């Protein structure tokens, strides 16, 4: 039961709150002139948000519980491995690299909140899964935050920002190179029909733009089959492409769709060669019923060499990753995560050499990297924000015996059409 003292207390609280409001000038958010801004610190190096004398904080916005859970896990673990190794070597600029991980579960609200939470406290983002979410914060990245963001998505719609940098070929370029492979090595020729099975959404539609361009250049006709990510049975698509008489097929969908398509195609004797984008394969497929068909007639276009490549960098990564995460599968997410982290690391090292570890310094440092090789077959050029860092595509094929389930059939190459293509145009 309220007494007079209680009422007095409430009134007092109200008054206190009112006073607090008028005293807002003392809020920690208030701007003290001269307090803000980049400051020189240990070793005469300019630092800003996310960097102290001891640590460099990088944000990771990943998906470990949503639709891209398996990709997110591989990418994040590879990046944590990178941070661990670089810290064991003394870190960058004498500072330890620390990853701050937030799992958004492919939920827009959580992704945007994660960005809002992390952006004041990190130097940049070594990983951001989900191109719609990257697009959602693009205004803030370009307008005020200006920190480097490396998305784990390869859609051309992400290009153009000096701060959001796509690593490796975009889906359209990859598809052009894939069509080039079918023409040069798999007997597809002028006048033929090319089937294209693609996801609704920017991945598939970006790939379709590439397929149409490649077809226009080479005199092919594209037969489109648009599917949803929830469609798992490709029988109808195979039937209608067979009826249309296609001589080659590109799949811009997920691993399940690719497995279904290749399996059904083998069963109904659709003889056309089939190639998928890098997201249309996972090593787990080889253990399924579609396994034999996949090893026989399926190819995968990829921005990098597979994890099982016969190179010192790849072998070391495989050994280290196995030691750190013995129970987890080795897939191309590991390569993608490692490459992204090492590109960020490279930019940090350059920024350190220029004694400027601010966001601006890192952005500038990245723009000077014109031939970076992460050890997986492709070289990256970051000098032009409007272009993907590489137009090279490696063609792989599934192989049960190889580590990660894939081996190279054509080394990194840029087709003529991909060279002349204006990305995102």
């Amino acid at each position, binding site marked *: 039961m309220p007494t007079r003292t209680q009422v007095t207390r*409430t009134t007092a609280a109200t008054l206190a*709150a009112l006073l607090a409001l008028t005293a807002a*000038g003392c809020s920690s958010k208030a701007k003290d002139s001269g307090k803000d801004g980049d400051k020189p610190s240990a070793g005469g190096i300019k630092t800003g948000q996310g960097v102290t004398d001891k640590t460099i904080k990088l944000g990771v916005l990943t998906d470990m519980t949503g639709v891209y859970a398996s990709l997110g*896990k591989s990418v994040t673990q590879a990046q944590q491995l990178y941070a661990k190794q670089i810290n064991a070597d003394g870190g960058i600029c004498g500072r330890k690299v620390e990853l701050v991980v937030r799992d958004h579960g492919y939920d*827009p609200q959580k992704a945007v*909140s994660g960005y809002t939470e992390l952006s004041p406290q990190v130097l940049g983002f070594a990983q951001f899964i989900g191109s*719609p979410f990257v697009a*959602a914060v693009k205004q803030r990245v370009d307008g005020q935050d200006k920190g480097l963001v490396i998305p784990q998505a390869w859609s051309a719609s992400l290009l153009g920002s000096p701060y959001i940098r796509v690593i490796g070929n975009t889906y359209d370029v990859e598809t052009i190179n894939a069509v080039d492979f079918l023409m040069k090595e798999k007997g597809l020729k002028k006048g033929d029909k090319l089937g294209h099975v693609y996801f609704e*959404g920017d991945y598939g539609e970006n790939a379709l733009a590439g397929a149409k361009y490649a077809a226009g250049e080479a005199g092919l006709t594209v037969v489109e089959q648009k599917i949803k990510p929830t469609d798992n049975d490709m029988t109808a698509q195979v039937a209608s492409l067979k009826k249309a008489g296609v001589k080659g097929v590109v799949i811009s969908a997920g691993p399940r769709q690719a497995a279904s398509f290749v399996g059904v195609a083998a069963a109904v004797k659709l003889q056309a060669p089939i190639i998928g984008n890098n997201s249309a394969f996972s090593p787990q497929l080889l253990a399924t019923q579609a396994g034999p068909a996949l090893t026989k007639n399926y190819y995968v276009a990829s921005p990098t060499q597979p994890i099982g490549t016969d190179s010192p960098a790849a072998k070391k990564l495989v050994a280290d990753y196995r030691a750190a995460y013995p129970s987890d599968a080795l897939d191309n997410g590991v390569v993608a995560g490692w490459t992204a982290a090492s590109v960020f690391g490279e930019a940090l090292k350059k920024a350190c050499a220029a004694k400027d570890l601010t966001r601006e310094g890192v952005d500038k440092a990245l723009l000077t990297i014109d031939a970076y090789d992460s050890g997986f077959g492709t070289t990256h050029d970051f000098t032009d924000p409007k272009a993907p860092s590489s137009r090279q595509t490696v063609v792989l094929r599934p192989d049960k015996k190889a580590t990660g389930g894939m081996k190279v059939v054509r080394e990194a190459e840029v087709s003529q059409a991909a060279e002349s293509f204006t990305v995102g145009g």
Partner: protein
Amino acid sequence: MSEPIKRLRRPALWTAGAVLLLALPFYLDRFWLQAGLFAMAAAIGAIGLNLLTGATGQLSMGHAFFLAVGAYGYCVLAGDSTATLTGLNLPSWLAAVLAVALAGVAGGLFSPIAGRLQGAYLGIATLALIFIGQHVLFNAHDLTGGFNGRDVPPLSLFGVTFDESELLVAAVPFGSAEKLWYVALLALAGCALFARGVLRGRPGRAMNAIRDHRIAAGVMGVPVARYRAGVFVLSSMYAGLAGVLLALVFQRTVPEYFGMILSLEYLAMIVIGGLGSVAGAVVGAVFVSLLPQLLTRYSDALPLVSAPGTGGVAPGEASRYLYGAAVVAVVLFLPGGLVRPALRRKTTTPGE
């Protein structure tokens, strides 16, 4: 308790609360303000759904569709026309009003169905709206921007633009979150008062009568079909306003968001908070929209949760378990919702 003190106490509490809410943008950082904005937008949507489901007993699974109509309606009406996108370039305040009206019109178009169906049947019928809505959002490229959505033009009101441009108020820099806070607060207060008025007046009693006994309500002279259709339109307009606010906070509309999960979340809000009351909707909305964010943010400090990528339960998973457990606990132990124990103590009747 003595009357004058009781009369003094409520306004004092309300003033304290209001002052606190008004002062928050001066102190909280952007993460919390944004979380609060999401909660306020959700609260407006939940009030609307509570009018429909809680007070009138009409189950709607299509709430997310009307949120989308509001959000995208605002973008199309206020946005610029570009090579790939259509926009009408109206003043943004007008666009916001029209977007709410548009959501009402969408609800009105559905009202022949909403007026005739009840309970689970209406739930199934409204489910169709979600699927149609998702299909349109993904494929009407020149209106919605397709998969990647489209940018949301900032709101402009009385010469103040609610964008990222900094405005110094008492030495505190005001960005979009700080400025929008007051818009959202005002909108929420208006919506809550209006809904309270509706619920306490004749329409509210008619709505409750329809929920409790449709035939009896009809016999007493309540035009059942007209009321059902009307409350559906009103609830759509609330959803439309929530959609406009959400779009302004997100700064980009993404079709992925307006799916069935969102509709279910709104239903969870009103069930957790308390069916049929404005306070219940607000409390439920705050609970449901803040809980996952809190869990994700403080996952490091929680027991049994490990950092993502180190194996074990990831914060995202943990937040889902806890969220699910919270829903079950509320339904089991507080069947009237979070606001009900307080109410029950006051209204206990001898028969209970």
